[in-house]
């Protein structure tokens, strides 16, 4: 079915899963406010939110099997959108499931915490669908505003307040960059639609146009901040450490996935004609992010901070996919995103399981001898660490993720051999901290007097083992995932040189 996006009712149909989530979230928001704050109410709203996310996942899956497409309009209807939607929705599912138990432990009472995750996810889905810079802005705002609040959810924690304020101020600043970039691109091409911008850039030879260059640069800064790529990563460690752990997991995966998906779509659909201009900056961004993330992570003792730096490094890996500028790169990007999301979620779930009230027990020393008291958690954590590192077999799908990324980098029309070498070398560096976690868990004795971790809630345990199993199983059949992600590359409406309007 081909949607005619100029027709309001067909536009509504094309936005089906997004609308389902938004309307459901509004209803849940009212329900959340209807009763006084309590653990039971928080759990009840959480369960309803899980059901809503599940329903949205089902609808998205149904949409994705229909082979739908659309004409040129404000939103995209392609498999790339559905794939990103699914990753973000799975992230939301995990965040809500983990949050239901984490909130009880940390005495976070507001039931709105789950609703805000839903709103943020709605923003991500809008981002994934956006084929117009205004819609990109709308999605970024909807997502970010909800996340600003979520980071500061724990009102008793000064770290959370610091993280929230830091993220809010820097985020507002980055959004301003993005908005200026949009304005300049609109100013030079006369359009905010990605497809039209792409056509006009090719037709009007904008590569050396100063306003367009400035716009592209500002856009790059804005996106760089949102995906926490070095050197725009300064906020990430503090915010990741201060935020409630489920929200940290959500930010490290779903937020990053959505921002990256938009980044990729804007770059592949609107700015391929500007390739010469943005290739070098992105190359450097990727290299710096990989280098900074992996080396700084070596010295981290707090697991949440360690994972924050690891996520900066992974932004670098994903930027390699963007730098290829090819559809093969975007397939590798989706594949890698799946692997990274699963492993990060699992790792953060283990952090929640080991942690204690007051967001304590996140230090590396608290993991010493974990194998002796919680063997299941230790094995799962080992899988996640190996997967994040890209270790074969035991790292499951993580290895193939890096493999396809390298392949895409080397096969690109402008081969990224040096970048591929940097990727491999920094991965080797990353072994220094990933394997250290494994070593601490298995080879060190449990310190005397160290209390056993508390009983893990069933939902947290579910997330830990589900992600671990998924990583291993998908690692055995990577072809399924790569097939899925190949089908999911953004399908730009055919560029027809004849129909290009003369730029004003």
């Amino acid at each position, binding site marked *: 079915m081909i949607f005619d996006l100029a027709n*309001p009712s067909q536009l509504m149909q094309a936005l089906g899963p997004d609308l389902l989530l938004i309307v459901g979230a*509004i209803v849940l*928001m*009212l329900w959340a*406010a*209807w009763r006084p704050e309590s653990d039971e109410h928080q759990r009840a709203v959480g369960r309803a939110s899980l059901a809503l996310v599940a329903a949205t996942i089902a609808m998205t899956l149904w949409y994705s099997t229909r082979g739908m497409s659309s004409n040129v309009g404000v939103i995209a209807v392609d498999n790339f959108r559905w794939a990103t939607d699914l990753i973000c929705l799975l992230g939301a599912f995990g965040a809500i499931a983990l949050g239901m138990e984490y909130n009880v432990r940390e005495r976070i009472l507001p039931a709105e915490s789950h609703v805000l995750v839903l709103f943020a996810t709605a923003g991500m889905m809008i981002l994934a669908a956006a084929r117009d810079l205004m819609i990109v802005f709308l999605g970024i705002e909807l997502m970010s505003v909800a996340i600003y609040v979520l980071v500061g959810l724990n009102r008793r924690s000064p770290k959370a307040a610091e993280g929230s304020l830091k993220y809010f101020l820097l985020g507002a600043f980055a959004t301003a960059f993005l908005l200026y970039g949009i304005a300049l691109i609109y100013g030079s091409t006369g359009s905010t639609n990605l497809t039209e911008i792409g056509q006009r850039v090719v037709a009007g030879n904008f590569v050396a146009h100063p306003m367009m260059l400035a716009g592209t640069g500002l856009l790059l800064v804005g996106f760089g901040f949102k995906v926490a790529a070095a050197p725009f990563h300064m906020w990430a460690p503090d915010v990741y450490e201060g935020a409630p752990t489920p929200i940290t997991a959500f930010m490290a995966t779903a937020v990053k996935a959505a921002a990256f998906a938009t980044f990729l779509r804007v770059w592949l659909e609107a700015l391929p004609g500007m390739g010469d201009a943005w290739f070098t900056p992105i190359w450097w961004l990727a290299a710096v992010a990989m280098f900074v993330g992996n080396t700084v992570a070596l010295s981290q003792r707090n697991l949440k901070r360690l994972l924050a730096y690891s996520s900066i490094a992974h932004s670098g890996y994903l930027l390699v996919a963007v730098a290829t500028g090819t559809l093969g790169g975007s397939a590798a990007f989706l594949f890698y995103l799946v692997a990274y999301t699963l492993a990060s979620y699992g790792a953060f779930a283990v952090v929640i399981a080991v942690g204690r009230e007051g967001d304590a027990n996140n230090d590396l020393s608290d993991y010493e001898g974990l194998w002796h008291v919680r063997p299941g958690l230790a094995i799962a954590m080992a899988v996640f660490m190996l997967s994040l590192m890209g270790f074969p077999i035991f790292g499951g799908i993580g290895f193939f993720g890096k493999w396809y990324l390298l392949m895409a980098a080397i096969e690109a029309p402008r081969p990224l051999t040096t970048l591929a070498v940097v990727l491999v070398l920094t991965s080797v560096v990353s072994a220094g901290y990933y394997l250290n976690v494994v070593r601490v868990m298995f080879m060190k004795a449990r310190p005397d007097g160290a209390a056993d971790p508390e009983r893990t809630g069933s939902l947290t345990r579910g997330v830990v083992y589900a992600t671990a199993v998924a990583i291993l199983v998908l690692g055995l059949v990577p072809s399924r995932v790569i097939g899925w992600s190949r089908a999911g590359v953004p399908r730009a409406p055919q560029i027809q040189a004849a129909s290009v309007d003369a730029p004003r």
Partner: protein
Amino acid sequence: MDRNYIPVLFLLGIAVLTAVAIIGLSHLVMRSRPTPVKQQPYESGMPPLGDARERFSIKFYMVAMLFIVFDIETVFMIPWAAYYRQLSCAVPLVGGACPAGQISFFGLGEMLVFMAILLAGFVYVWKKGALQWD
């Protein structure tokens, strides 16, 4: 630029000049005889306790935030209202009226969706007690 704006500038100029003249003239004419007691902030005859610019109730901030949201809604509604006849007509208006059989529910529907979303937020803040003063 529309020439109708020019008289507003004249009026603004006259008003600003008058304000400056009144304040300036009264400053020149008056005789100043300050005394330490006269210089104190008035606090019902008591010696003032500390600085007046203290922290004040968070409710004022909340009202200000809600105002931003609802005022933007109003500002959005005003052009909608002024353009309502065209919005509820499927074809361009003929002589200020919609041709027979061309009425569309687009204008009303859009505003109802907008209002419903805003109303949900309004009910939420009401239920949360943000509109409650004690």
